[in-house]
């Protein structure tokens, strides 16, 4: 029989306010094998840990139960403390009486009863615990960055500068991402391209960075320190080694009807194209759906004019497989589709999204920077900005969250218009102006106070395109009046959402997403750049709406975490993996077919069952690949599969204790 000690934490008043801790301590002492129980205000503190250490020595404890917070919070803390005093860390169990008890119950008697019950379940489990020993796994000194926007570029440069190899996978033909589409950046109004393009060049020319543009992650296997990733390099139809970037091909290409992704569809591009003039790499791509040669077999003009002979119509997708120690997800965002926001007349040529407006004001954009109505080419006399289009919208068509960047870029847009064309009347309809960043409020106030931008608190209910002008109807919440106004151009501060590709990438990485589709961090306060999956890190807007400074800061933080990981020579593995009982396994393969990690194989082994020898097909777990998810253990009809540290017997013992 084990000698068990139970340690109950107050967690200040987090637990003690809802649970009678003394009662839990007293009841725990009545449990089988419990020889010591005690309480402390903060068990995770130095003093609390010392209390556990002293009790283990004094009472010869062979099992420890800590009734406190979620094991996700402090299991590692307490297991480390146990290891320090020579107890196998896996002889320690936690009962979660905070998140699953004190925080969610108001009635003290009921909460106390539940805390007692949860503690007794942990005691029942610890009686069946066996010492487990962590193994070691190697660390591949190479990082993969998924997404080549400012987040991905920043992480890659930081990691590469520290001396490690980094690969960037970017799905579009060039790196740069959303930031490349922007004209000026708030709150300094410095030119986006001027600060981004040198970074793009740095990334492309860095000895330690390999770019895989026009490429996608095909599959991910393995685990922290040892991921094996297959990258699909889509056929560019242009030989990257031969191409000199002269541009003769896209100058001559006769197929010019494809809407330009970079220009948000406001202008067309050729079938063979680079996304924008400063693209990195400066190597064109043939859009095979638009290319006349691919569609009809005739043309091939680009091939004729290409002096180095880089055009290759026969090129196939190429699969590259590479090992990585860490993966950084930096897939970014996109504006939501406005199909369900008909009241704003989004189909009108003079109703733009903010990103479209960004292109209109850009000197390299479709209007060469001229601020004109796209319907008739006239200069507008009045521009109206509508904020929170789809953001902070709890109806099913919208997003409940604040898209965060819109208040500031709208102030920026308004200011830029006023700066260049003081005669244009600029109105902004808003719910709240949120400007909590550094120099943000000053920026907004400058727009409203110095530049004379007219801010109206209220939402626009209807927009009608009258042909040569637009009419909108809105409520002014401060003056409490209805407004019907005439305007020439409307800019919608469209909510942003994660890219559609975020979900499949999260699936491949077994990482988590939230209900809005954004990647989830491991802990909202203490692990903001780590995903819950070890070795997978997050940077930028794939994790939630972020502006550029925040994105770059998160990228730097993620890079620091990656470097911490890559600098290790070995990692300790989780010993809580599956194991098959060879006397019970009948080799049916059910476990193999449900294993998401391909960690189970089969082998014919000679077994000795109580003196009877025979060959038996048996499941064999590759402990390096096993992630301890337990799918095999619940699938096995024979109960032969078990998860070490979470065996069927241990879990049934907990259930029994709870049902007593």
């Amino acid at each position, binding site marked *: 029989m084990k000698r068990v000690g139970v340690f109950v934490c107050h967690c200040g008043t987090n637990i003690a306010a809802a649970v009678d801790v003394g009662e839990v301590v007293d009841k725990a002492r009545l449990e089988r094998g419990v020889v010591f129980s005690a309480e402390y205000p903060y068990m995770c503190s130095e003093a609390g840990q010392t209390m556990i250490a002293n009790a283990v020595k004094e009472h010869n404890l062979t099992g420890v139960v800590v009734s406190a917070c979620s094991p996700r919070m402090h299991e590692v803390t307490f297991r480390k403390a146990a290891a320090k005093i020579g107890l196998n860390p896996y002889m320690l169990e936690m009962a979660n009486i905070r998140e699953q008890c004190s925080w969610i119950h108001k009635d003290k008697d009921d909460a106390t009863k539940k805390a007692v019950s949860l503690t007794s379940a942990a005691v029942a489990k610890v009686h069946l615990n066996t010492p487990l020993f962590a193994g070691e796994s190697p660390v591949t000194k190479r990082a993969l960055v998924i997404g080549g926007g400012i987040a991905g570029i920043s992480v890659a440069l930081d990691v590469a500068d520290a001396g490690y190899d980094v690969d960037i996978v970017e799905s579009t033909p060039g790196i740069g991402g959303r930031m490349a589409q922007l004209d000026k950046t708030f709150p300094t109004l410095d030119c986006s391209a001027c600060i981004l393009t040198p970074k793009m060049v740095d990334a492309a020319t860095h000895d330690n960075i390999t770019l895989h543009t026009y490429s996608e992650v095909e*599959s991910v296997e393995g685990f922290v320190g040892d991921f094996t990733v297959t990258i699909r390099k889509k056929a560019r139809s242009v030989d990257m080694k031969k191409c000199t970037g002269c541009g003769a091909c896209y100058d001559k290409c006769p197929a010019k009807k494809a809407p330009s992704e970079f220009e948000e569809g406001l202008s067309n591009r050729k079938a063979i194209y680079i996304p924008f003039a400063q693209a990195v790499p400066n190597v064109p791509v043939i859009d095979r759906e638009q290319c006349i040669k691919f569609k009809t077999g005739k043309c091939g003009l680009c091939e004729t004019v290409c002096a180095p002979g880089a055009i290759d119509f026969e090129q196939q997708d190429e699969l590259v497989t590479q090992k990585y120690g860490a993966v950084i997800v930096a897939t970014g965002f996109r504006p939501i589709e406005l199909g369900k926001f008909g009241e704003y007349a989004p189909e009108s040529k003079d109703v733009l999204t903010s990103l479209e407006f960004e292109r209109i004001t850009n000197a390299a954009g479709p209007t060469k920077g001229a601020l004109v109505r796209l319907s008739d080419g006239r200069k507008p006399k009045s521009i109206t900005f509508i904020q929170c289009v789809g953001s902070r919208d709890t109806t099913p068509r919208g997003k409940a969250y604040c898209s965060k960047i819109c208040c500031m870029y709208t102030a920026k847009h308004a200011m830029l218009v006023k700066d260049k064309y003081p005669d244009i009347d600029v109105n902004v309809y808003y719910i709240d102006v949120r400007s909590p960043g550094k120099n943000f409020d000053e920026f907004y106030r400058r727009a409203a106070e110095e530049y004379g931008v007219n801010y109206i608190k209220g939402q626009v209910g209807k927009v009608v395109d009258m042909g040569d002008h637009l009419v909108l109807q809105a409520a002014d919440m401060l003056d409490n009046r209805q407004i019907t106004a005439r305007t020439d151009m409307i800019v919608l501060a469209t909510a942003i959402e994660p890219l559609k590709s975020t*979900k499949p990438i*999260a*699936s*491949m990485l*077994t*990482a*988590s*997403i*939230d*209900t809005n589709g954004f990647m*989830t961090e491991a802990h909202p306060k203490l692990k903001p750049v780590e995903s819950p999956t070890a070795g997978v890190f997050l940077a930028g807007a794939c994790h939630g709406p972020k502006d550029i400074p925040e994105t770059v800061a998160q990228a730097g933080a993620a890079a620091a975490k990656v470097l911490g990981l890559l600098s290790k020579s070995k990692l300790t593995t989780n010993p809580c993996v599956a194991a098959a*009982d060879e*006397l*019970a*396994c*009948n*080799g*049916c*393969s*059910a476990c193999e*077919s*449900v*294993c*998401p990690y391909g960690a189970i194989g*089969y082998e014919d082994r000679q077994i000795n*069952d109580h003196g009877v020898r*025979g060959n038996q*097909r048996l499941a064999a777990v590759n402990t390096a690949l096993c992630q301890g998810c337990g*799918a095999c253990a619940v*699938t096995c*009809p*024979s*109960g032969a599969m078990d998860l070490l540290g979470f065996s*069927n*017997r241990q879990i*049934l013992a907990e259930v*029994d204790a709870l049902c007593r």
Partner: protein
Amino acid sequence: MQEQLRILAGKMLADGRAARVLGWKRTDFETAPEPSFFTAQDDLSELVYNKYCAANLSGFMIGAGKRDGVTVVFLKPCDTYSFNQLVKEHQIDRAKAYVVGVSCGGNAKVEEMEDVGWLERCLVCTKHDHVVYDELVLDESLSRPEAQDRFGGVTRLEGLQSLERYEFWQGELSTCIRCNACRNVCPACNCKKCVFDSAKYDTAAKANVTTFEEQLFHIIRAYHVAGRCTDCGECARVCPQDIKLQLLNRKIIKDINELYGEFQAGQDTETLGPLTAFNADTDAEPSIVHTRG
């Protein structure tokens, strides 16, 4: 047909192609032939085939596959599904089996050695063709009873109030004498050590002191064969208490069909069952973390 089977078996034994023949053997009662291995040609006069040869011989092929030489086995259409399922689960060595598919006109229900009509499974039978065989011995003259709706009984139970349904099952299961016949005859119940006999769990001890049979034994067993049960109906056939065990299995089959699309265990030897198939492309969803609110 019986004579054809005897000749075929005799030839296979005589020329050494088979080491043994698995069939049904005559007993003192005409209504109760029993599964038996024949190794000598002389014994084949005891081999019978008639409507009382209800036993599904697939399960015996697990052991036969571990012995030397080929075993000839006679399988009715419904039995071939069990055979396939066991091949899929790597329990039967297909190379050591010579499957002779035999026609079936339905099996008789036998009570106290008396023929009292058709077995329930034969009244709902839709498995008219053999899904695996090396050779067929057919008798086109055999006619089957008209098939009724296989899920009729389940649908009726689903229509009951939960308390009524509970009472129905209490009525059925409280008569269980825990003879384990259902488990022992079930081809899917091929664990080396049954969980109900295992010292690894407390199940065996609990069974002695609680209303375990009534409340859990059969339900646990149904779940252990979920997705693998071919609905061969052997459990219900051998139950001495006439418990309607097929209803439990068919409820799970019906649910699987409704949730994952039509699936018949044992249809082939490759398709993974819906409960044991994992496809990273279609099944892997990133876990969605719901925020506190």
